[in-house]
């Protein structure tokens, strides 16, 4: 087979191009990062100790702190509610772990739910605009409220019901405004962002900070010395629907 140098170089160039773009497409489909980094440098996580939380059944301090620091309005219509962190009954949160003989008081014990900041978030996979993404440096599932088109595909994809859509204008429902954090417009989806704005200032999430029972423990899973890692290593904890493979990063002590 005769081949000139020019043809050879052209062919080689084209093959490299095909190989590289093919690899990128595959990496994209598998949700891998292209720079070859295996994991985020940090992976923030939270442990909810429901035993401590339930000692104060009427407490809503974490919810209030979150709402006021993030301009989350309180909307009376339950179908239009915006919720970043809220309470649900244990039996509804852990359907698979239901024990029929569990006493009603324990079944109805409230626990805290919020975005799970999954390792492998389905909401990020389905978003058609990249308005939600997993941040490389700390594993937070972030949101860009200026890019979101409000298609609500992420709400269908989230197995935890963690996402809220602004069915109506949220600004008219806000009683007090925190000028340090953006408000949202109607027609976009929002959720817990693990207080990225406070983390940037070296503070912890607002909910964990105000909890009087110290029931919310926040930390970095990639740091073996962190409190969360020690707790997860020394006792049994549960995650919501782990069999789905989403890798939720909120752990529960029941």
């Amino acid at each position, binding site marked *: 087979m005769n081949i000139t140098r020019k043809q050879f170089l052209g062919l080689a160039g084209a093959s490299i191009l095909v190989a590289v773009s093919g690899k990128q*497409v595959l990496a*994209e*489909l598998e*949700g891998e990062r292209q720079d070859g980094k295996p994991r985020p440098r940090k992976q923030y996580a939270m442990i909810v100790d429901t035993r401590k939380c339930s000692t104060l059944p009427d407490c809503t301090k974490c919810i209030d702190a979150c709402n006021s620091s993030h301009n989350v309005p309180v909307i009376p*219509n*339950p*179908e*239009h*509610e915006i*919720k970043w962190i809220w309470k*649900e009954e244990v039996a*509804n*949160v852990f*359907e698979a772990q239901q024990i029929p003989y569990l006493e009603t008081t324990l079944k109805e014990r409230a626990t805290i739910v919020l975005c799970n900041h999954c390792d492998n978030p*389905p909401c990020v*996979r*389905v*978003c*058609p*605009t*990249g*308005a939600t993404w997993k941040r490389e440096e700390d594993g937070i599932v972030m949101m860009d409220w200026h*890019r*979101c*088109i*409000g*298609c*609500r*595909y992420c*709400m*269908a*994809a*989230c*197995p*935890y*019901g963690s996402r*809220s*859509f*602004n*069915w*109506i*204008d949220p600004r008219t429902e806000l009683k007090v405004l925190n000028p340090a954090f953006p408000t949202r*417009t*109607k*027609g*976009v*989806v929002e959720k817990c962002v693990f207080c990225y704005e406070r983390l940037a200032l070296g503070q912890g999430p607002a909910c964990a900070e105000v909890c009087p029972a110290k029931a919310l423990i926040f930390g970095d899973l990639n740091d073996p010395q962190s409190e969360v890692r020690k707790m997860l290593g020394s006792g049994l904890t549960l995650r919501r*629907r782990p069999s*789905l*493979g*989403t890798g939720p990063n909120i752990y529960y002590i029941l």
Partner: protein
Amino acid sequence: MFMLEKAVTGSRKYWTWISALLLVILVAFYYYMRQFDYGLGLTGMGRNISWGLYIGQFTFMVGVAASAVMVVLPYYLHDHKEFHRMTILGELLAVASVVVCMLFIFVDIGQPMRILNVLLYPQFHSVMFWDMASLSGYLLLNIIITLAALHAEQKGLPVARWVRYVILLSIPWAVSIHTVTAFLYAGLPGRPFWLTAIMAPRFLASAFASGPALLILLCMLVRRLTGYDVGRKAIDALAVIITYAMAMNVFFLSLEIFTAYYSRIPDLTEDFNNLYLGIGPHSTLLPWGRASIVLMVISLGMLLLPRLRRNHVTLVVACVVTYLALWIDKGICLVVGGFMPSPFGFVSRYVPTFPEVMITVGVYAIGILMVTVLYKVTLAVKAADPTQFAYVPEDKHKATPAVGTLAATEVK
């Protein structure tokens, strides 16, 4: 070039119809502006049932659009000459259906002014990106095909050679649009009702029954209104296709039901209980689920009996029943049912509001307006050549090759 001048001359009846449609569209537009102003809170959707009537209609109409392949494939690939007079009507129905699909997505968007973000920041890992790409491509293909076919017909020539390749491409493309639409649902981890590999085949089966059923009804309407007859054999052949597709759809549905109830996995059984047996006090879907089952049984029964299928009066009834059964199944139960129960185990109530219904009706009115105008132009082109317009029964058909079939042009 688009021959739209043929759409602006018409009888009094034609203009009354056009005006009525425009009026409905105008009223719907008013409600859309209210939704635009107030937000999607104007609809019956909420945090638990976050997709409703709009996305249901979108999903159903993708099927109607894809079903054009049921006339295109036999006609162009197998030279099934009976479909000669019907094919372009099917392709034009696909054009209107794709536009309707896109409008249903548009009215469901919370921030419609930002819709171009899908193109500005394309996300190749999102099925929605691929759905948009496949739908736009399918629309483009069908516009090219129908325009080329009409121009060829105007000149009394077979369609150009290159158009045949576009037509060939449109066949797998039609399958792709409904497959990708099924993937929108079938790839979500937390919704067991949708998480099934049979979603795409079942979508295609129900589409290939509902779309052609609508096409038969339209062809009969066209014959009554204009005298343009697609031919008895075409209708009968399409009715057989509907019968096979409906049988497959019922078969696929029963496979789903077997898997759920024999495995007795609560995640699976709950979803079918919700549709057909009722769970909790808010089972708004129960009457719809049951109605679709009853209508499917009636439809399949009527289609399977040759005497009823070949009688065009009972065939019309069978087509209406088929269409209704699948519209309820896919346009209402499939999407809303997927959100029940919620991730916390609740069954929420979803009832579309009046503005939501009006916007839905308005989008359909735009589709009907498109079908009216496109059919009007096509029939005007055909009427210019009386040999094209008048129906010649197949047995008396001379050896003239059907315009534009692959086989006919291959011979030369």
